[in-house]
C-alpha cells in the first residue's frame, strides 16, 4: 500500500493507493507542527494495511522563509568570511532608495576563517594549519553552534582541506556540511550560499523527520521517503543530511504529478505539457518537454541554491491577488495578496478587491459549491470591494471585473512565456495542464491568449501533488567542476571523474536499498563556448567516455545554444565545465484508476444553472462524455470554467480534455 502526502500552507493532501483503488482526502494543515496534519490525514484515510509513505514537505522552505533556522557557523579561507554577506555586491533594487537586504544567514561573529589556499589549478599554495583549525573548533564548541558549514576557495578541485576541517568538527561533537560535498562547483558565493542554506535547514529537517517517522510508524508506515526538489524521493535519513535538496519538495511533487497524469492521459512517454498551478497568492508554471525540467540556477527566498531543482517559475498572481489603480490610472493586480487571511472580500473579512472577487462577480464561482460548500462567499461584499475601481475606471462592474481577470491572466501568461518562448519553445506545441485550487477558472482563457488549443485538467486536481509524490523514483544528483585553466580536460580525465561520481552514486543508492542491477545512472555535462560565463546542460550517451561522446555532447550543445539564444558557433571551441551524474532507483508506483463508462451525453452530471451557464458535478461525469462550453464544473476542491468555444471530453481515467474549436 502506498500513501502520498503533500503539506501545503492551508491544507494537507493525501492520496492512498491500495493496489487497485485510489482514495484521496484533505485535512487542515497544522503550521505549529506540520507532522500532526500528516498524521491526521493518515487517520482520516484509515489505511487497512502497513504502507510506504512518500511525503512532500515544506519544512525546509518554511524554515528558510521564516528564518527559523539552526544556529550554524561558517568556515572560509582566510580573507573571505564576508563573501556570504557581500554576495555579488549589487543592491536589490536599482531605483529604490529604501531598498533592503535580508541579513546574512550566518552573522559575522559565527563566520570564521582559516589560513589555507588552493589555486585555480588545484595546487596547494598554503597548507592547512591543524592547530588553527583546532582553535577555531574549540571556540565554536563554546559558541554552542548546531552545525558547521565549510566552504574554502577551489575546494571542488582539492577537497582535502575541507575534509580535514570536517573531521576536526566531528571530533568536537559538531555536525558539519562541506561545500565540496554539497556543491563541488566553481563560483564561491553561490557555492557558499548553497552550503550555508544546507547547514541552516538540515538540522530543522532532521528534527522534523525523526518525530514524523516515530509517529508514522505507529500508524503503520513501514517506510518513509521525502520528496526532493529534483523530482525524486529519498530516505528520511538522507533528506535530513541534505535538506537543501528538499526546498522545492511540494512544487516538485506537483510537477511530477502533472507528468504522470500527462503520460497516461496523452498516452505518450514524452508528453509536451506546460503545468499551471494557481493558488491563493502565487502561480507555479513549468515546461515539460517529455520529462521534468531541471535547473541548477535557482534562488530560494533570495539565496542562491545551485543544486539541481525542478525548473519552476513562480509569479505573485493568485486568487487572493489584490487589484489597485495607481496615480497614473493603470490597473495593477498583485503581487500583494489578501492570502487566506483576511482572504478575498467575498469571505466577509477583507475589504480590498481580489481576483476571486472578480471571478465571483462574473459568475464563475458557484457559491453553494465553493470549496465543497465549506466556505460561504458573499457576492455583495465582492461587488462592494470592486466599487471604487468601477467608479474610477468609469465602466460597469462586469467590465471592471473582466479587466482584473485580464491583468492577472496577463501576468500568468508572461510567466509561461518566460519558460517557453524565451527558452526557444513554442507554447502552441504544448498542452496546458491545470491543477491547484484556482487554476481551473483561468486555464482556458490563459490557453487562448497563448494560442494553446489543448487543455488538460486531471481528475482530483486539488490533490495532484500528493499523487506526484507517489509517481517518483528515488533519485540523487552528483556533480563536479572539471574546468581547467590551461587546457581542455582530456577524455581520460573526464571518464575518471564520471566514474568517481558514479561510484559515489552507487554507494549511496545501495544505502537506499537498491541492488546494483537496479540502479540506473545517466551522465550529463554543462558546456559553454570558451570565454562565456553561462553553461547549458546536455545529456551524454551511455558508455565509456571517448571522442564520440565528446562530439555528441558538443553537437547537442550547439543545437541547445541555437534554440535558446538564436545562434550557434560550431567553429568555436567548447569548454567542458561541470560533469553531472543522476542516479535513479525505481520504486513501485500507483496506477491511475478508470472511472465508470458512459455515453456521449453528460446530462447525468447536470446540477443547476447559474445565469445562462450549466453547472455540472464533476464526480458524476462518466468516461466518454462529451459536450461544449460554456459550463462550470464543480468538485470538492476546485471549480473549472469552460468558456464557449471549447469542446470537453472525459477520458477513461476521468481527466478532462478541452479543445478550442476552430472559429468559423
Amino acid at each position, binding site marked *: 500500500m502506498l500513501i502520498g502526502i503533500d503539506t501545503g500552507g492551508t491544507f494537507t493532501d493525501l492520496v492512498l493507493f491500495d493496489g487497485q483503488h485510489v482514495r484521496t482526502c484533505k485535512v487542515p494543515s497544522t503550521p505549529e507542527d506540520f507532522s500532526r496534519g500528516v498524521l491526521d490525514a493518515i487517520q482520516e484515510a484509515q489505511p487497512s494495511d502497513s504502507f510506504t509513505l512518500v511525503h512532500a514537505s515544506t519544512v525546509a522552505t518554511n524554515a528558510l522563509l521564516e528564518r527559523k533556522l539552526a544556529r550554524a557557523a561558517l568556515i572560509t579561507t*582566510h*580573507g573571505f*568570511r*564576508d*563573501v556570504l*554577506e*557581500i554576495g*555579488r*555586491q*549589487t*543592491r536589490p*533594487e*536599482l*531605483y*529604490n*532608495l*529604501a*531598498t533592503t*537586504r535580508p541579513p546574512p544567514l550566518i552573522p*559575522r561573529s559565527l563566520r570564521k576563517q582559516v589560513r589555507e589556499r588552493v*589555486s585555480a589549478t588545484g595546487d596547494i599554495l598554503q597548507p592547512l594549519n591543524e592547530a588553527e583549525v583546532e582553535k577555531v573548533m574549540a571556540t565554536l564548541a563554546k559558541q554552542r553552534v548546531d552545525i558547521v558549514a565549510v566552504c574554502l*576557495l*577551489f575546494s571542488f578541485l582539492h577537497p582535502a582541506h575541507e575534509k580535514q576541517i570536517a573531521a576536526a568538527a566531528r571530533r568536537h561533537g559538531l555536525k558539519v556540511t562541506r561545500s565540496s560535498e554539497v556543491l563541488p562547483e*566553481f*563560483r*564561491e558565493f*553561490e557555492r557558499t550560499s548553497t552550503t550555508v542554506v544546507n547547514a541552516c535547514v538540515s538540522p530543522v529537517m532532521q528534527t522534523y523527520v525523526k518525530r514524523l517517522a516515530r509517529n508514522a510508524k505507529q500508524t503503520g508506515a513501514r517506510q518513509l521517503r521525502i520528496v526532493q526538489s529534483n523530482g525524486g524521493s529519498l530516505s528520511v535519513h538522507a533528506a535530513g543530511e541534505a535538506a537543501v535538496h528538499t526546498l522545492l519538495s511540494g512544487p516538485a511533487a506537483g510537477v511530477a504529478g502533472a507528468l504522470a497524469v500527462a503520460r497516461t492521459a496523452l498516452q505518450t512517454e514524452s508528453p509536451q505539457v506546460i503545468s499551471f498551478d494557481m493558488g491563493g497568492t502565487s502561480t507555479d508554471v513549468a515546461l515539460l518537454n517529455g520529462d521534468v525540467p531541471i535547473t541548477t540556477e535557482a534562488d530560494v527566498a533570495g539565496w542562491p541554491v545551485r543544486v539541481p531543482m525542478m525548473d519552476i517559475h513562480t509569479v505573485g498572481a493568485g486568487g487572493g491577488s*489584490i487589484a*489597485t489603480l*495607481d*496615480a*497614473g*490610472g*493603470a*490597473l*495593477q*493586480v498583485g*503581487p*500583494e495578496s489578501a492570502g487566506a487571511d483576511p482572504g478575498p472580500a467575498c469571505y466577509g473579512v477583507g475589504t480590498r478587491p481580489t481576483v476571486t472577487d472578480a471571478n465571483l462577480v462574473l459568475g464563475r464561482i458557484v457559491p453553494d459549491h465553493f470549496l465543497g460548500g465549506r466556505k460561504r462567499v458573499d457576492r455583495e461584499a465582492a461587488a462592494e470591494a470592486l466599487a471604487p475601481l468601477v467608479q474610477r*475606471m*468609469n465602466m460597469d462592474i462586469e467590465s471592471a471585473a473582466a479587466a482584473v481577470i485580464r*491583468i492577472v491572466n*496577463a*501576468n500568468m501568461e*508572461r510567466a509561461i*512565456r518566460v519558460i517557453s518562448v524565451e527558452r526557444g519553445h513554442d507554447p502552441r506545441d504544448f498542452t496546458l495542464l491545470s491543477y491547484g485550487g484556482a487554476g481551473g477558472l483561468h486555464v482556458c482563457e490563459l490557453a487562448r491568449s497563448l494560442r494553446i488549443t489543448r487543455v488538460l485538467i486531471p481528475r482530483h486536481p486539488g490533490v495532484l501533488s500528493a499523487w506526484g509524490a507517489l509517481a517518483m523514483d528515488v533519485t540523487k544528483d552528483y556533480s563536479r567542476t572539471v*574546468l581547467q*585553466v*590551461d587546457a581542455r580536460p582530456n577524455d581520460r580525465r573526464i571518464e575518471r571523474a564520471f566514474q568517481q561520481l558514479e561510484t559515489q552514486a552507487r554507494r549511496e543508492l545501495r544505502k537506499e536499498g537498491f541492488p546494483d542491477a537496479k540502479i540506473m545512472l545517466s551522465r550529463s555535462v554543462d558546456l559553454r*563556448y570558451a*570565454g*562565456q*560565463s*553561462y553553461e547549458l546542460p546536455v545529456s551524454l550517451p551511455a558508455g565509456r567516455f571517448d571522442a564520440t561522446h565528446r562530439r555528441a555532447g558538443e553537437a547537442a550543445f550547439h543545437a541547445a*545554444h541555437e534554440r*535558446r*539564444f*538564436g*545562434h550557434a*558557433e560550431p567553429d568555436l571551441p567548447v569548454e567542458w565545465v561541470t560533469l553531472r551524474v543522476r542516479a535513479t532507483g525505481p520504486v513501485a508506483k500507483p496506477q491511475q484508476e478508470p472511472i465508470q463508462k458512459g455515453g456521449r451525453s453528460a446530462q447525468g452530471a447536470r446540477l443547476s444553472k447559474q445565469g445562462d451557464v450549466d453547472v455540472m458535478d464533476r464526480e458524476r461525469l462518466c468516461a466518454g462524455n462529451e459536450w461544449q462550453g460554456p459550463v462550470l464544473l464543480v468538485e470538492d476542491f476546485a471549480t473549472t470554467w469552460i468558456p464557449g468555444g471549447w469542446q470537453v471530453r472525459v477520458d477513461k481515467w476521468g481527466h478532462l480534455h478541452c479543445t478550442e474549436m476552430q472559429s468559423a
Partner: protein
Amino acid sequence: MKKTTPNPADLTFFANLFTRIAEEMGGVLARTAYSPNIKERRDFSCALFDGAGQMIAQAAHIPVHLGAMPLSVATARAAFPKLAVGDVVMLNDPYAGGTHLPDITLISPVFGSAKRQPLAYLATRAHHADVGGMTPGSLPLSREIYQEGLRIPPVRCVERGTINQAVFDLVFANSRTPAERQGDLRAQLAAHTLGERRLLESLERYGAPELRRQMSQLLEYAATLMQATLKQIPDGSYSFVDQLDDDGAGSGPLPIRVEVRIRGDQAEIDFTGSAPACATSLNAVEAITQSAVYYCFLCLLVTPSRLHPGRSSLPPINAGCFRPIAVHAPPGSIVNAEPPHAVAGGNVETSQRIVDAVLGALAQALPDIVPAASQGTMNNVTLGGIDTRTGQPFAYYETLAGGMGARPNADGLHAVQAHMTNTMNTPAEALEYAYPLRVERYEIVAGTGGKGTYRGGNGLIRDVRMLNDTHAVLLTERRTQAPYGLAGGEAGTPGDNGLIRGRQRKRLPGKIELELKAGDVLRIQTPGGGGHGAILT
C-alpha cells in the same frame, strides 16, 4: 490620432510587454557575451524606443545609460534618416551619442508593414573591456579623447541583414582583445535579433496602429506619474555643492554646483557654477549629466514614500518620466564637456558626484526621504598585460562596491554598488581561471560607515596579487572628499588605495597609472556611506 482615455488594463499590459522585450534582450546578451564585464558584471543596457526615438522601455541594468541611450538613437536617426530593414548602426563617440569609448552601442530599426517609417528602434549598449587607447582596459588617465581608444561615429555595421565585415575588422584591429570583442558584439547582435523577433510577434498580434497608440499612452502615463510626484515636492529653489577629489593631474577639488528649482509639477536642474572641464578624463558629456539627474528623479518616483501613497507596483520607466525635467549644463563645464576633452572617467566617477549633488539639494526639500551620500565612486580598477600562462594579452576591469548612505529611517547597506551602477563582482574563482591574478582578501571593513542615528554602510577591502607583471590604472574617487552625512550624521570614511611589494607598503593616490611586478599586491579599500541624524548618546 485622436486622443482617448487609456484603458487602465492596457497600460499595465503593454508596459509589461515592452519591458519584457528589453529584459529578454538583456538575458541573451548576458548569457552569450564573452567579456566578464558583460556576462558576470552585467555592465550593459537594452532598450526599446518608439518610431520617434523616445525611450519606451529599458531593462533596469545601468542608470548611467538612461539619458545616453536616447541620444544614441537620435544620433543614429540623424546620421541615417533612411534606415532599412536589417540595418544596424554602431557608435561609441561620446561627442556623438556615446558616453565613453568602451561603451559600444548598437541601434536597429524595426518596421511594421510600412517600410519607410520605423515602428520602433532597439538599442543595446555594452561596456567592452578594451577598445584600444593608451592603456589596457581603455579607462586611462588621459588628456584628450584621442588617447582613449577607437572613436566610432555612427556607422552602418549591418546593412540589410549583411554584416559589413570591414567595420567589425576595424574595431577588432583596434582592441587588445579582439576575440572577446567579436564574441561580445555577436552577443549584442543576437540580442537585437531576438528583440526584433519579439516585437514582430506583438506586431502580428496587435497591429502597428495599436502598438503606436499604446506607446504614446505609456509615455503620457509615465509623465503623469512623474508630475504627480513633483507636485508633492514643496516649490522652491534648493542648492548644493559637492566636490570631486581632483583630476589626478594636480588640480584641487573640483566643485559640482547645482540648483534644483521646483515649480508645481516641473523641475529645473541648473549646474551653473560647476568647475570648468578638467585636464584629465573626469569630464562628463551632457548625456551623462542628464542620466544622473534622471536617475535621482526616478528614485523619487520609485521609492515607496508619502510622495505616492497606496501604490503597490513599480511605475514604467520611459521617456515620459523625463518630460517635466529640464537640465541646464553649461557648455564647456565639467558636466558638459566639449571635444576634444578626455571623458573616460566622467561616465564612471563624475556621474556619481552629480548624483550626490542633486540628492544633496533634494534632501533639503525632502529630508524624510533622501539618504546621506553613498560611497560616490565606482572604484575603477583596470589591470592588463600578457598572461604568461597562455601568451595572450588580457585586460581586466572591475568596479568595487562600498558603503551605502544611511537613510532617514534605516542604516545604509554594507558593500553594495551605489547609484549610477549596479554591476556584479567577478567571482574570485572565475577571475583566477580567466586572468593571472589571485584574490587574497575580500572583506567588509567595520567602522567605515559614518556614525549617526542611522549609520552609513561599511566599505570593503580587496587585495589582488599579480602573478605577472601588470599595467594598472586606478580611477577612484572619494579618497579625500568624504561622502557627506545628513541631519547631523557623520561623513563616511574615505577610500584608500595601497601597494604591497614584499614588506613595503605604500599608499597610492586616487588616480594613478603604474607598472606592477609579479608578486605585488594591490589593495583597494572603498569608502563608507555617510550617517544620518545626530549621534545618539
